[in-house]
């Protein structure tokens, strides 16, 4: 990361900092794949577009990219009977 704190120094001087976390943020590190886990290449081949966020969510390209869209509203199962596999990106948090 180049000049990592340039412009960001003031954040640490805040008195009331508000943080908004999105779902494809690296903080979460959970990746969703809609096919059995065989690596990102396989996911792409299956038509899954990776989000280029901070390392977060992969999603079916037909979805908005939001995990909430994946669930059936009545059963809360993953829609279209696709297998859901989760893992984490970083070694320290891998499942």
């Amino acid at each position, binding site marked *: 990361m180049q000049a990592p704190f340039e412009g960001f120094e003031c954040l640490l001087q805040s008195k009331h900092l508000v943080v908004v976390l999105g779902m494809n943020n690296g903080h979460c590190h*959970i990746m969703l794949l809609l096919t059995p886990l065989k690596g990102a290449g396989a996911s792409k081949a299956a038509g899954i577009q990776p989000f280029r966020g901070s390392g977060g969510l992969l999603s079916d390209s037909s979805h908005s990219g939001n995990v909430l869209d994946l669930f059936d509203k009545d059963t809360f199962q993953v829609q279209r009977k696709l297998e859901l596999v989760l893992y984490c990106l970083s070694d320290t948090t891998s499942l």
Partner: protein
Amino acid sequence: MADLAKAAACARPTAFHTLLRALSCHGILGRTYTQNIDDLELKAGLTTVGEELNCVQLHGSMMKVQCTQCGFTEHTVHHFPALSSGKLPPCPQCEMRIENRKSEGKRIGSNGGLLRPAIILYGESHPKSEDIESIQILDRSKADNLLVVGTSLKTYGSVSFIKEMSRFIKKRGGGVYYLDLASPPSKMVKFFDHVLQADCQDFAMLALDRLGMPKFTASASVDRDRTEADFAELVETGRIRKDMRPSWDWA
């Protein structure tokens, strides 16, 4: 959903979660609004209740289930088998009420509710929407900086919130920051004073260092092999949350 919840139950907070907790301990963090439903912020030590509420879960939490009728809530871990089968389990509180009415010879009225994951799907209203609105109004009046992390800024709710918050903050001379691997959408660029294209974990490590916090070291051990009964015990004892806080926060 059960698989997802179980995976999230195993996951440990990352450096960025730890940074949020550190910011809170240093009196810097006013509030975190998260679109995540995995409770990792809470495992890191943030809270969604009480006077110290510093985390608003905009889409609820999949780590809890809630009755569709009476509002009874319980940890999802107790219902993994039922949720895995695709059938929502009956609410134990409603069942008890029905049994009591039966034994008293009273009319039952309804069949009782079902326990569904306490997440808010699109098109549903947040059960705590009035509370969240009050919190947002408070934050608009107090926030001096806004940090937006890891969102593609495509959903209406988050975009409108960020736009509105940024207006108030800029009026007070504060800054609006965007942190993501990608740049923000072109029509949103004007709302940010600073854009950092980077991995937020790297950012968190540096920020923790600037705050003088111990170097972040996540435990190498993970909970992958824990059984559902193990998880249930951890939930009952409260250990699942405390164990995953940064070690400097255990006291």
